[in-house]
C-alpha cells in the first residue's frame, strides 16, 4: 500500500470512531491502534489476575462463612474479568501464552495497587471500597470505547466491579459500626490504602503523554487529574458516613470550586512501585510465575489428552 492509500484508510478509520462506530477485530486498523489496544487490554487483564492475590490472601481467614463465600466469589469474578480481557486481546492477533510471557518477564505492567500487602481483614473492605471504586471511575468510559470486544467486555466487568465496591463498603460499614478495635482496624486500612488508591489514576496530566491519543480513540474521556478529583469528591462523603478520615492534612472543601482540595501524592513512592520495587512486587510475580510453572505439566497433559481423544474419534469414524 502506498503512503497515500494508508493515509486515506486512516482518515476513514478515524471518521468511523468519530461517528461512534465500533471497530471490530477483522476491520482494518492502524498498527498503532492495534498495539496500543493489545498493551492496554492485556495490562488490564494482568491487573485482574494479579489482583486476585492480595485478596486471595484472606480467603482462608475470612471472619464468617458469609464473608468467606462473598470473598471467594469476588476473587473468582476477577479471574473471570481476566478471562474476558485476555480473550478480547487475543482478537487482535496475540495469544494468551504470549501475553503471560510478557507479564512473567516483567515486560508488561499491571496495576501497581496490587503490590501493596493485605495485612488485616479491613484491607479486604478497603480494597473493595477504594480500589474497585477507583477502577470503576477509571473504566466506566471504556464501556463505550471504540474497540468492540473491549467495550463489550467492559460492560459486564463494570457491573461486577460496582457490586464489589458496594460489598467492600459494606464490610467497612460493619467494622465502623462494630467495636472500637474494629473501627481502628478500618481506619488503619484507610490510612494505608488511601494514597495508593489515588495513585491508581496515574501520573499528573503534564506527565501523561498518551492522553490526547487515548481520548481520540475513546480509551479515555477525562484526564488522570480529572478522574482523581472525581474519586476524591465521591469518596470523602463516604468516609464521613463511616466516621473515619483520610490521612491527608491538606484535604479541605473548596467552596468556590465546589470540590475538595487535597495534598500531593508521594511521586517518589509512585515511581518506585511502578518500577518494580513496591512492598510486594516480588511476591506477586513469584506467585504468578510459580503457579504458571507448576501448572505446566497439567496444561500439557490436558493438551495431549485432547489430542488422544480427537485421534480416537477419527479412528472410530474411519
Amino acid at each position, binding site marked *: 500500500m502506498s503512503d497515500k492509500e494508508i493515509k486515506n484508510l486512516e482518515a476513514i478509520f478515524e471518521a468511523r470512531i468519530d461517528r461512534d462506530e465500533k471497530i471490530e477485530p477483522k476491520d482494518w486498523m492502524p498498527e498503532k491502534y492495534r498495539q496500543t489496544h493489545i498493551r492496554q487490554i492485556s495490562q488490564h487483564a494482568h491487573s485482574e*489476575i494479579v489482583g*486476585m*492475590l492480595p485478596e*486471595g490472601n484472606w*480467603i*482462608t*481467614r*475470612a*471472619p*464468617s*462463612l*458469609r*464473608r*468467606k*463465600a462473598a470473598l*471467594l*466469589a469476588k*476473587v*473468582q469474578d476477577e*479471574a*473471570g474479568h*481476566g*478471562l474476558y480481557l*485476555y480473550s478480547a486481546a487475543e482478537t487482535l492477533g496475540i495469544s494468551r501464552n504470549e501475553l503471560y510471557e510478557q507479564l512473567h518477564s516483567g515486560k508488561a505492567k499491571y496495576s501497581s495497587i496490587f503490590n501493596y500487602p493485605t495485612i488485616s*481483614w479491613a484491607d479486604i473492605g478497603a480494597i473493595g471500597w477504594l480500589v474497585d471504586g477507583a477502577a470503576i471511575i477509571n473504566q466506566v468510559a471504556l464501556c463505550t470505547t471504540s474497540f468492540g470486544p473491549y467495550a463489550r467486555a467492559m460492560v459486564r466487568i463494570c457491573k461486577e466491579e460496582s457490586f464489589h465496591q458496594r460489598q467492600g463498603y459494606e*464490610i467497612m460499614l*460493619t467494622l465502623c459500626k*462494630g*467495636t472500637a*478495635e*474494629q473501627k481502628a482496624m478500618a481506619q488503619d486500612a484507610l490510612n494505608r490504602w488511601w494514597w495508593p488508591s489515588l495513585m491508581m489514576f496515574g501520573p499528573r496530566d503534564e506527565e501523561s503523554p498518551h492522553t490526547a491519543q487515548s481520548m481520540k480513540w475513546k480509551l479515555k474521556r477525562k484526564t488522570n487529574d480529572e478522574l482523581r478529583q472525581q474519586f476524591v469528591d465521591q469518596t470523602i462523603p463516604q468516609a464521613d458516613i463511616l466516621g473515619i478520615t483520610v490521612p491527608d492534612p491538606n484535604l479541605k472543601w473548596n467552596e468556590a470550586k465546589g470540590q475538595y482540595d487535597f495534598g500531593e501524592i508521594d511521586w517518589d513512592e509512585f515511581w518506585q512501585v511502578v518500577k518494580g520495587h513496591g512492598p510486594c512486587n516480588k511476591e506477586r510475580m513469584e*506467585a504468578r510465575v*510459580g*503457579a*504458571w510453572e*507448576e*501448572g*505446566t*505439566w*497439567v*496444561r*500439557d*497433559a*490436558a493438551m*495431549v*489428552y485432547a489430542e*488422544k481423544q480427537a485421534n480416537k474419534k477419527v479412528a472410530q469414524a474411519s
Partner: protein
Amino acid sequence: MEKEHLYQYIVGIADNNLVLGQRLGELCGHGPSLETDIALTNIALDLFGQTRSYYQYAAQLSAQHQTEDDVAFLRKEREYRNVLLVEQPNTHFGHVIARQFLFDVFHYLFLEQLLHSKDDTLAAIAAKAIKEVSYHKRFSSDWVKRLGDGTEESHQKMQEGISNLWRYTNELFEMTAYENEAVKAGIGIALSELKQNYYKEVNHILEEATLSVPESPYFQKGGKEGIHTEHMGYLLADLQYMQRTYPNMNW
C-alpha cells in the same frame, strides 16, 4: 432422635464440606490455569453453601452454638468430625484432583440416599446439593482421566495422588455412634451399603484413566472421632484466626 445427637450427626456431614472448601480456598489464584481456578472456586462455593445450610440447621438444634459461624469457627480440633481425606494438603494438582475425586464419588452416593431421609430439612439440603455434586464428580473424574491418560509425567503425578490418598478412603464408610442412631431413626445413611458401589465406580474411572487401583489393605481413620492428622491444626489456625483473635464481634 435426641436433638443434641442429631446436631452431632449433621455436623459430621457438614465438616467434610467445610474443610474441603477451605483447602480449595487456599488454591484460589494459584491454579494451573484461569479455567481450573474458576472451576475449583465454584466447587468451593458450592461446598460452603451446603455447609451453611447444614450448620444453620445444626445451630437450631444446639444448646451451645447459636449461629452457623459459632458451629463453623468456635470448636476445638477434637470436635471437628470430618474424614481425614478432606483435610489433606494441596501437595500438587494430582493430589488436589485425587482428593476431590475420591470424595466426590462418595459425596454423590451419600446424597442420593440422604434425599430419602425422614428429616425433611436434610432431604431438602440433599436435593439442592446433589445437582451441584454431580457437576463436581464430573469435573474431578474428567481430570483424573485427563491427567491419568495425558503425559507420562501427569500419569505419574495422578497415580501418586491416588496412591497416597487411598489409605483415607475406607474411613468414608466407618460408622460413628451418632450415625448408627441416625440410621435407626430413619434419618441417617448406612454408609457400609455405599461401599461396594463406591469402589466399583472409582475403580472403573481409574481403569479408564489407565491408572492402577492401589492394593494396600492398610487404611487410616480417626477424623470422624475427632482424631485428625497433623495438618488439621494449621488449617484450623487459619480458619479460626479472626474469630479467636477478636471474639464476640460482628463481621
